[in-house]
């Protein structure tokens, strides 16, 4: 059973890296949606529970204190890091791909078949051109945490 998840849209100032006293003050918001795998299933439906071989997409928006959307010119990299150490690179582009109505960062990832099951926290690490980093974590609320369920994802049959 998987659970739609609507809770992790956040807008909190991230904790600056301890060594970067002059680090930029960025704001983050993030959620998780089901990826576009070959299927006519519920693509981009928000959820926090995924199975092995299923694509999770972490969606992240980074803004500055004025609300300006920070794109790939403002950041050198944006990485999602799971509790087990798994790192997933995010890319900035428009969504939907055709006739985009919004622009943000996405980190798509197909969960390997041997990936640990259970709930995992994650954090987002932003790095700017100077190398300054800022790390942000969503709420540590267990019902909405990223969860890998046992079993393999099967695309819905038509």
């Amino acid at each position, binding site marked *: 059973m*998987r659970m*739609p998840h609507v809770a992790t849209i956040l807008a909190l100032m991230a904790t600056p890296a301890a060594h970067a006293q002059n680090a930029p003050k960025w704001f983050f918001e993030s959620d998780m949606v089901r990826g576009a795998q070959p299927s006519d299933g519920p693509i981009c439906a928000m*959820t926090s529970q995924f199975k092995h071989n299923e694509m999770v997409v972490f969606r992240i928006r980074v803004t500055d204190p004025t609300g300006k959307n920070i794109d790939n010119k403002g950041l050198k990299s944006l990485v999602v890091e799971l*509790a*087990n*150490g798994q790192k997933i690179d995010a890319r900035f582009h428009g969504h939907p791909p055709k006739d985009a109505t919004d622009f943000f960062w996405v980190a798509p990832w197909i969960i390997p078949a041997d990936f*640990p099951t259970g709930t995992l926290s994650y954090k987002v690490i932003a790095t700017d051109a100077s190398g300054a980093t800022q790390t942000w974590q969503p709420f540590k609320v267990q019902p909405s945490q990223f969860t890998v369920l046992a079993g393999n994802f099967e695309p819905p049959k038509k």
Partner: protein
Amino acid sequence: MMRRLVVLALAAWLVPWAALAEPPASFGPTEPMAEAQGGFMGHMAAAPDHGAAGTRVTITADGLPPGREVDLVWRTVEGSWNVADGHYHGRIYKPIAYRIASLTPDGSGHVSASFAAPDDFGFSHDVVLQQGDRLLTQAAFSIDMQVKVSPAHASLGSPISIDISGIGWRELENSWMLLYDNRFTGWVSAVTTRGSAHVTIPAVGAPGTHVLALVHGEFTFPYLNPQQNPDPDRPRFSATFTLTPGAPTLPPDPPRQALLHIKNLPPPGALVTEPRFAGVGQAMVARATGLVPGRRYQLSWGSITGNRVTDGTWQENSRVVATAVADGGGAISFPFKVPDDLGGAHSLAVVDDAKTLSGKAWVATTALPLDVARGPAGTTFLVHLKGVGWTETANIYAVTYDNGYVGYACGFNSQGDVQIFLKATGAPGWHFIDLYPAIYKGEEARPNNFRIPQLTYAADHPGEDLPHFRFAFEVTDDARGQRASLDPSR
């Protein structure tokens, strides 16, 4: 999409039963909610990865630090209702972890262990290996829901028991809805019962086969096509029940259905009532000591008045319900009849020159017999309750007729007096009307279980300990008494 339709076997022995499993606290002491530090260490698997409570689970892990003890831990939550000052604020689930065993990896970093899945909330649980507050690795085990209906055969009015284990605590896992012959009966909770629920409904209808179903419903009512939902894997359950011919089992007289014991009564103060609770009109005595011998005192009864509709406000007033004279030792007794008032706690006070003695009286909810208990279809009859409460968890009762939800009635504005006029319907024979506690409203969006019968009121109602009432009406096939009611209030 995978569709899970679980058709229940009627024989209970075909289902592994959670009652045989132990609660998670029986594993051992609690452990900290450990977090990974710099990623996971090693890899771990659970086999099987799901099963009913009591299932034997084997854990194997590799890549751990050889020779250094690690703790195998079961993660779950403790559930509670969040109610205060008459308001309903929702549910609280507090994460908690129990040590299953301490293990020492062999020279190659391998450990294995097995345990019985506990009688716990259903769906996914983390099983983790940790050292202190450092999580090394983890695997999930999912507890499957189990539903048992018994007996398989019974006559009209007999109790049908539905026992459920493995109800979840997360969204889309924690709000289950019971249907009887495609009629919505009510909802099933398991917040404080760790995923287990017990429901009893009457066997109703004509002799023959009847169908019970349990489906999830996040927003008040059953959700009927979950297989087409973005999350299609919610289980569904159904079972058949055979109603056999025979003499009906009728409910006890309504006045005898009041609670004999009430949980969680407020602590007595300086004024102590005997009995600790009573229904409207029943005798009660309030006693105190330490007063001036020979002096006459008044006993004040506090009462909430108001509603949540016209201006949304209420206030507490008090009135004198008894007077008495303190005896030579300064002790006093105030005998009185419980006023026709709201159910629940009422403040009691005796004012002395220098002090006020206070206490709490508890008004229990009671029911009167039906004014008319038989007649042709269309007959109007009155369901009458006294001592219905005022809080968001006690101010309404939800009504089912032959296990089909009809609506609800509120007792706040009428000081606990609830009069529900119903029309008898259905084929000639006995029909059953049940009144269940319900939650009126509150600060909760998901799930939304407001204003529908809480079938699990007895073990899991938030706030007050409230009774359920069952009435029976016999529809006759004599049409001579049929006539339109001229009383517009009916």
